[in-house]
Each structure stands twice: as structure tokens, then as C-alpha cells.
């Protein structure tokens, strides 16, 4: 039994409306952040973190929704990106850019190894094998403490918001927020492009009928592995930004809370709708911070929310928004069904 994507019913969503949704979400974040919240470092910090979660969740979405495989080691790939930056900076005195490239390459290679071994097999091997990365990676981080800083974590590699933000080169929380959301926008556009290009169409075909696709002479595994590697690279990128933004990485970043958070983001936001995932990552990051009533029960609430969402709206909220946008902007042009 392969883990097949369950949301084939919603494949006919309007891609253009979906892109509009994504851009509106990013625009709202940028405008609200730069005008209304510019003197509130705490709120800006939450926006920055939600941007990082958005990138990581989009990476998870890519394998979950487009390939139909659940990557439970997404947090480990994120950790590879984060630790690469930290170790490169603290131990080898390399710049953040070099560390970032190493981190993304490392995450991509790890994703390649795991997916080459498991994705050519049928069944839930991919989910199992990626889940297993978590205890292994935790053991490595905790025990290789001369390199990773062990349970205390690793700091003083020149990260943190007082260091210059990537891309724009200015320090400060506002600059970091803007830089992170520029990167997030880039990842969103890549995600939309991947869905529209020939590669994305092939993944779509594989999800609907892998046998038929293989009978046309294509190698199904190659496409799946490629998607997993792209997803791993993006997870590594999210880890890079996280490490640079926080200024401290520790073993807790790869644990269950992170995994649970990005899974609820992808499921609630709508795994087929990048804009929905981004909006959900903002809500899931910010609401628990202000809803003190959740307190320590945050993860517990995520679990309940996950079960409720799967029961009543397994495709998430995103498709509704996209359909609404499509209805509002309808009539501008008609496209044949097969291009959607």
C-alpha cells in the first residue's frame, strides 16, 4: 500500500487565484510589519519566525501534497541547515553564506540518501525512515558535544538580530523580518513555479496514476527523489535562516514540537495551497503566543486541532480561500480544464 495523496478531488483549483492568495498574504505581512508593528520587536520577531516556519512548511508540503509521501524527518533536515551555519561560523570561522550553502547541500544529500533507499519501495517506508532520523540526529548532536555544543547548544557564531540581515545587510529586527519575508516570497514563487512547470505536472500525473506514468517510459522514482531533494534543500535553507536569526541552536530544534507545528500548519492551511500554508504558519506561530490560556498545553492543542482538522476539513482552509478569490476574479479568462 502506497501512501497516496488523498486530496485528488481538489486538483482543479485555480492556480492563478492561488498565486494571488500567496502574494496577498506576503504583501499584508510586509505592509503590517513595516508600518504598524515597526516599533514592536516582539511582534516583528514572531513575524520573522513565522516566515521561517512558512519556508519549512512549504518544503514539507512539497513532498506531502505533490508526491504523497510524508517526511517526518523535516525537522532533522532543518537541523542540518541550522547546525551547518552554526558550526561553520563557530568552529571554522566561515561566513553565513558559505555555511548556508554547506547546510543546504548537506540537507539535500541527506534527503537524497534517505529517499533513494526508501522511495523505490512501496509502502510507508519513507515516513518510517525519515522518522528514524530524529532519534539518530538527536543522539549525534548530544554526543558529539565538542562539535555541536551538546545539550547546551551552540552560540557565538555571529548570528542573532544584531548581526546584519541577509540580502539587505542591515542589523535589527525590522530588517531581519523584511529579509526573511523576501526569502519566503522567493520560496513561494519557486513553489508555484514548480507546480506549473513540466516537473510539477509530472508529479501530478504520478500522484494520480503512477502505473500509467511509468508505462509512458518515465522513471517514477527519479521524479519522487528529485522532489524530496528540492524539499530537503528548502528545509536546509529554513534552518540556515533560523540559526542566523536566533544566534543559538540546540538539539531541541529538531524535536517533536517543531514537527507537530509544521504538520498542523500544512494540514490546516491546505496542503495544495501554498498561500494557505503561509497564512497558517503566521496564525499558528502568533496565536499561541497571545493566547496565554493555552500555556503549556500548546502541543496538546495542536494534536487535538490536527485530529479535528483531518476529520472535518482534511484539505485545509486554503482551498476555500482560493475558490473565493477565483469567484471574485472570475470571468477574466477561461482556461481548459487540463491546464489547471
Amino acid at each position, binding site marked *: 500500500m502506497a501512501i497516496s495523496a488523498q486530496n485528488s478531488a481538489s486538483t482543479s483549483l485555480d492556480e492563478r487565484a492561488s498565486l494571488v492568495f500567496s502574494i496577498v498574504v506576503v504583501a499584508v505581512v510586509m505592509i503590517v510589519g513595516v508600518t504598524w508593528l515597526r516599533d514592536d520587536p516582539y511582534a516583528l520577531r514572531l513575524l520573522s519566525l513565522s516566515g521561517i516556519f512558512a519556508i519549512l512548511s512549504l518544503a514539507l508540503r512539497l513532498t506531502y501534497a505533490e508526491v504523497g509521501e510524508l517526511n517526518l524527518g523535516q525537522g532533522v533536515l532543518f537541523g542540518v541547515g541550522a547546525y551547518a551555519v552554526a558550526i561553520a561560523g563557530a568552529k571554522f570561522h566561515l561566513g553565513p553564506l558559505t555555511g548556508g550553502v554547506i547546510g543546504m547541500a548537506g540537507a539535500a544529500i541527506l534527503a537524497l540518501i534517505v529517499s533513494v*533507499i526508501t522511495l523505490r*519501495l512501496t509502502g510507508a517506508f519513507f*515516513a518510517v525512515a525519515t522518522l528514524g532520523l*530524529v532519534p539518530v540526529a538527536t543522539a549525534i548532536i*548530544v554526543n558529539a558535544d565538542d562539535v555541536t555544543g551538546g545539550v547546551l547548544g551552540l552560540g557565538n557564531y555571529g548570528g542573532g538580530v544584531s548581526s546584519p540581515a541577509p540580502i539587505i545587510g542591515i542589523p535589527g529586527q525590522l530588517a531581519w523580518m523584511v529579509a526573511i519575508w523576501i526569502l519566503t516570497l522567493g520560496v513561494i514563487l519557486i513553489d508555484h513555479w514548480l507546480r506549473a512547470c513540466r516537473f510539477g505536472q509530472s508529479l501530478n500525473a504520478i500522484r494520480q496514476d503512477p502505473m500509467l506514468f511509468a508505462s509512458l517510459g518515465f522513471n517514477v522514482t527519479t521524479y519522487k527523489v528529485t522532489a524530496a531533494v528540492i524539499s530537503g534543500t528548502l528545509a536546509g535553507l529554513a534552518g540556515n535562516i533560523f540559526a542566523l536569526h536566533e544566534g543559538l541552536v540546540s538539539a531541541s530544534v529538531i524535536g517533536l514540537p517543531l514537527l507537530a507545528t509544521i504538520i498542523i500548519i500544512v494540514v490546516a492551511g491546505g496542503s495544495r495551497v501554498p498561500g494557505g500554508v503561509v497564512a497558517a504558519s503566521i496564525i499558528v506561530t502568533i496565536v499561541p503566543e497571545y493566547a496565554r490560556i493555552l500555556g503549556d*498545553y500548546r502541543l*496538546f492543542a495542536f494534536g487535538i486541532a490536527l485530529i479535528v482538522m*483531518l476529520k472535518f476539513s482534511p484539505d485545509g482552509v486554503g482551498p476555500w480561500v482560493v475558490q473565493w478569490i477565483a469567484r471574485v476574479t472570475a470571468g477574466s479568462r477561461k482556461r481548459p480544464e487540463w491546464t489547471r
Partner: protein
Amino acid sequence: MIASLIQQVINGLLLGATYGLVGAGFAITYGISRVLNFAHGAFFVVGSYGVFALFNYFGLPLGIAFALGSLFVLPFAFVSYYVVIKPYGPDKGSTALLGTFGAAIVILEGLHRVFGGRLLVLPRMFDSPTITLLQDVHVSFDQAFVAFISIIVLGISLASLHWTGIGRRLRAIVQSPEAAQLIGIDPEPYRLLSFVLGSWLAGVAGAGLAFLAPIGTGNGLNMTFVAFVIVVLAGLGNIGGAVIIAFALAVIQALSSLYVRAEVSLAAPYLFMVLVLVVKPRGIFPTRA
């Protein structure tokens, strides 16, 4: 050196009884409902905390707490079945997988809130000194007793799967749900039964290990993963094979803590699984299905 080798092999075999329960329970659950149950490790932990609660809050003797602790799993398994297993069939693979993931989080986080985050330790069941098998090879009485009970429970479960009418019908559904329905077996009650039985076996394992290792919610995901590895290597749905693999895995893990650093033994099941999957992609005992 040879003594510590024998010691670790024996430790591994004793731990194998626990793994055998976890693996067989997972194989039974998977074989019938065809859903990989992430909450399996959570049920294991429920068993451990059940023993602790009975001993600590109700003041029951340790032996009785051991016997009753695993029963706490039953309500959790019932509710989980109706909330996250039954609504999703095997054709909704990743939705069901995520549902059990949510159930695992809810159970583990709930226990974490009720019992607090620190590791809990039970006193020893038997005050008697360790049994000395050879020179420098020792087994504690608790270890031996837990392994003994685990093997008895495992044996009774496997025997009833093989020789009772209910067990035969269960195995028929594992082999082919359609054919089983054709000869008049209604799969629904058997799905519930197998899920509760499989989960309870994990609870028994958890209740036993509560005497040998600290109790904590961190065991939850680890045990889920151990169960995954066992069942994947045995071939999905192969219950007898799962027991054999469980013992092998436990021995390998014990030996790896002897020859490599102790913490590496956490990674041993993973490396073992990767190696086997590279050589034998369909598992060690592939089923015909």
C-alpha cells in the same frame, strides 16, 4: 571480555521479550487495519504510567500494579480506534497516518502534563540479589520476571491467533479482507479487536519496562520507531517474523552499546534497517501479498 559479551547477549534477549510484544502488537494492528499506528509507542508509555499510578497513587503492591497497569491502555485504544482509525480506511493512507500522529501527541502531551516532565523510577519488584548465571554474568530478578511474563503473554497471544476460531478469522482478514468477507466474516468487529489487542500488547511491554528503565514520555516515539523497524524488516503484517526480528534487534542494540558508545545503540535499529532494506527491499520474511 567474553563474560561481558554473554552478558549483553542475555540482556538483549531479555529486552527482546519487550520488543517482541511491541513488534507483534504493531504487526497485528497493521495487518488488519492497514494503518501505521503512530500512537503505538504512546500506548506503550500509557502502560508504564499505568503501573506507576497504581503503585504511587492507589498504593497497590508492585506485582498487582504490573498486572493491572496495562489495562489502562484499553480505553485509550478504544477511543483512538473510533476517532482516528475507523473513519479513515487504508486508501486514505497519509490522512490516517497523520490522525494517529495527532493521537500520539495528545496522549503523550497529556501524560506529560499530568505526571510532569521528569523521569519516574519505580522501586524494584524483588529485593533478592541478582541471579548469577556464570562468573560475571548477572541477571536481576526483575529483569527475568518481566521477560518471563512478557514471553507468556506473547505466547498466549500468538497461540490464540493460531489455534482459536477468532484467531483464524483474524488471520484470514490479514491475508485477504475480500476473501474473508466472501466466506461470511464481518471484518468490522475484528478490526476493533485487533487494534485493541495489538495496543494492549504494547501496554504490557510498557508496564514491564517500567520496572527496568525510567518512565518518561520520551519513550513514546522511540518505541513507535522500534515497532516500525521490526515490522518493516519482518515484512508488513508478518506477526511471527516480527517476534524473531524483535529479538534480533534487541540483541544487536545491546551488543552495539558494548562495542560502540552506549548512546549509539539508539541509532543501531536505524542503521540495521537501512542495511537490510538496501540488501532485501521487501524485508527479511517477505509476505506474498
